[in-house]
C-alpha cells in the first residue's frame, strides 16, 4: 500500500540552541500511506523535530524536503500550503474566536480565499459547511459557537485536530494528540487517525507516549533520544529492542506531557 517515493524527507537535520543540540543529525524518509510513530522520552527533541519539519524553527544544519522539493528555507505558511499539516502539542488556537471560526479559517486558507477583500465571509457557505463537517468528525459540533478560550482542555485538543483536518494536508503531524484528554475522549481521536490512515495516501507522523496506541496504529516506529535517531523499524522489532525498553521505562517513570 505504501507509496514508492517519500513525501517527506529530512537529511542530517540538526538544530542547536546555544550549546545544546536538540535535534542531532536526523535523516529519515516518510512515505505516503504510512503512519510513523515517533517515540522517545520527554526532552528527546520530538516537538523540535516537528518544528523543523513544518518550518516553525529554522535548522542549523541539514535539509527538509517535501515532494522532492527542498523546503529548508521556506517559511511555515508556504510549507502549510504545500500540504504540511501540523497539530500542536501545546494547544495553540485563536482564543477569542469561536470554535467554528477557528476551523473555518483553516478551511479558508486551504481554499485560497484569504486575499478576497470584497465579498462577505458569511456568504461563502461552502467553507462554513466544510468547517462544520470537520467539527463533526472530532465530535465538537455542539460547541461551534463557543469561544475557543472557554473550551475545556480535552475539547481544545479536539479543536486542534479539527483545524488540522480542515487543512486537508498530505502530511499529518500529530504531536501527542491525546495528551491530557479524558479516557472517554481518546477513542474519537484514535478512530480519526485510523480513518486518515485508511485513506491510504496520506503521510502521518505521530508523536505518542502510549505504547498500546503506538502498537495498534503505527506501521513503523522511530525513536529519538537526546536529539538523535536511535532506532527505526517495524513496531514489534523496535518495541522489543533494548534501547526502547529503556526509553519506554523512562517514559513510565515520568508520564507528564512536556
Amino acid at each position: 500500500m505504501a507509496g514508492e517515493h517519500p513525501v517527506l524527507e529530512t537529511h542530517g537535520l540538526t538544530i542547536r540552541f546555544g550549546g545544546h543540540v536538540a535535534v542531532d543529525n536526523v535523516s529519515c524518509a516518510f512515505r505516503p500511506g504510512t503512519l510513523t510513530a515517533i517515540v522517545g522520552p520527554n526532552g528527546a527533541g520530538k516537538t523540535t523535530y516537528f518544528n523543523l519539519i513544518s518550518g516553525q524553527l529554522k535548522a542549523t544544519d541539514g535539509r527538509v524536503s517535501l515532494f522532492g522539493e527542498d523546503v529548508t528555507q521556506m517559511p511555515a505558511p508556504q510549507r502549510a500550503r504545500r500540504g504540511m499539516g501540523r497539530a500542536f502539542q501545546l494547544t495553540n488556537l485563536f482564543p477569542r474566536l469561536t470554535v467554528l471560526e477557528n476551523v473555518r479559517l483553516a478551511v479558508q486558507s486551504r481554499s485560497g480565499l484569504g486575499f478576497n477583500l470584497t465579498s462577505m465571509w458569511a456568504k461563502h457557505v461552502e467553507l462554513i459547511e466544510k468547517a462544520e463537517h470537520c467539527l463533526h468528525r472530532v465530535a465538537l459540533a455542539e460547541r461551534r459557537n463557543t469561544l475557543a478560550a472557554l473550551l475545556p482542555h480535552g475539547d481544545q485538543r479536539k479543536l486542534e485536530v479539527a483545524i488540522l483536518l480542515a487543512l486537508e494536508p498530505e502530511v499529518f503531524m500529530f504531536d501527542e494528540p491525546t495528551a491530557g484528554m479524558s479516557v472517554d475522549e481518546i477513542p474519537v481521536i484514535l478512530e480519526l487517525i485510523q480513518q486518515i490512515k485508511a485513506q491510504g495516501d496520506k503521510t502521518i507522523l505521530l508523536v505518542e507516549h502510549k505504547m498500546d496506541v503506538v502498537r495498534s496504529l503505527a506501521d513503523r516506529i522511530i525513536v529519538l533520544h537526546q536529539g538523535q535517531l536511535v532506532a527505526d523499524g517495524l513496531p514489534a522489532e523496535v518495541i522489543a529492542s533494548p534501547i526502547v525498553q529503556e526509553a519506554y521505562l523512562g517514559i513510565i517513570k515520568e508520564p507528564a506531557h512536556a
Partner: protein
Amino acid sequence: MLTTVLSGDFPRSRWLAALLVTVVAGLAAAPFIFPGTRSLDVAARILVFILLAASYDLLLGYTGIVSFAHTMFFGIGGYGVGIAMSKLGPTWSSLAAGSAISLALAVALAFLVGLLSLRVKTIFFAMITLAVASFFQILASQLSDFTGGEDGLNYKLPELFLPGTKFAEATLFGVELSGRLFSYYVLFAGSLALFLVLLRVVNSPFGRVLLSIRENEFRSEAIGYRTVAYRAVANCLGAAVAAAAGILYAIWLRYTGPDTTLSFNIMIDILLMVVIGGMGTMYGSVIGATLFVVAQNYLQDLMKLASNATKGIALLPDLLHPDRWLLWLGVLFVVCVYYFPAGIVGRLRTRKAPPAP
C-alpha cells in the same frame, strides 16, 4: 439589501442600533438642524474623525497592529490638497492631482514602513512608526515654502466648494444652497462610503485573516497565511483611508496646518476614540468619534451652565469652571476605559453579562 450595505455586520444591540441611527441621521441633516457655523464645523469634524478612527481600528482592533503614524497619513492627504491648491491653483484638475498623489504617497509610505518593520515585535513597530511620524512632522515644518511651516496653508478651492457660491436664490428649509452645503455633503458622502468599504473589508475573508493575526499570529502562519503580506495590505489600506480623510478635511477647512493634521494630540485622540468606542467593532469608531468630538467642543459650554447653576455652593462652581474642562474630559475617559474595557459597543452588545476587565 441592508445585509449587503452593512456587510452582514449588524449592530446586534437595540441601543447601539438606536445610537447609530441617531448619529447618522443627525449628521445627514446637520446643515438643517444645526446650521450655525460652529456646529456645522463640529459635524464635519465628527465625519472626518469617524473615518480616521475606523481606519485606525482596522489596524489596532482588527489586526493588532499598534501604529503611531496614522496622523502622518492623515497629514499627507491634507497637505496633498493644500499644496496642490496653493501651488497649482484652485482647479478641479489640481484637486484631483493633489488627491491622487497624496493617496499614492500614503500607500507607498505605508508599504515601506511595513516592509522595514513588520516582522519585528509590536512594540518595536510602534516605535518605528513614531519615529517616522516625528520625522514627517519636522519635515513639514522645515519645508515651509511648500507647507507654510507652522502657519500652515490657506487656499482657495474650485468654486463649487466656496461658501460664497450660491446655487439658487431660493433657500431650502431656510438654509442657503451654498458651496458650504455642497462641501458638507461631499464630506458626508465620502465618509459614509469609505466607512462602508471598511465595514466590508473587515467582514470579508481577508478581514477574518486579520482577526486570526490579532488572535495568534503564530498559528495563523501555521495554517498557511503569510501574515506579513496581510499586515502590509491592512497597513496600506488604513493609510489610504486616513489620507482620504485628510483630503476631505482639507476640502472642508480650506486650510491645512500641523495642528489640524499632523499633531500627536490628534493621534492620541484617535486612539482614545477607538478604545472608548470599542476596539475591533467599526461601529465603535462612530460612537467614539462622535462622543469625543462633541465632548471636546461642548463640554466647556456644559460646564459653564453647571458652574452657574451651582453658584453659592462651596467648591462646586470652581470645580465646574469651564477652564477645568480638560480635567473633566480626562476623568470621563478614565471612567470609560475602566468601566467599559470592551468599549461602549462591546458593553452594549453584552449588556446581560458585563465582560471581565
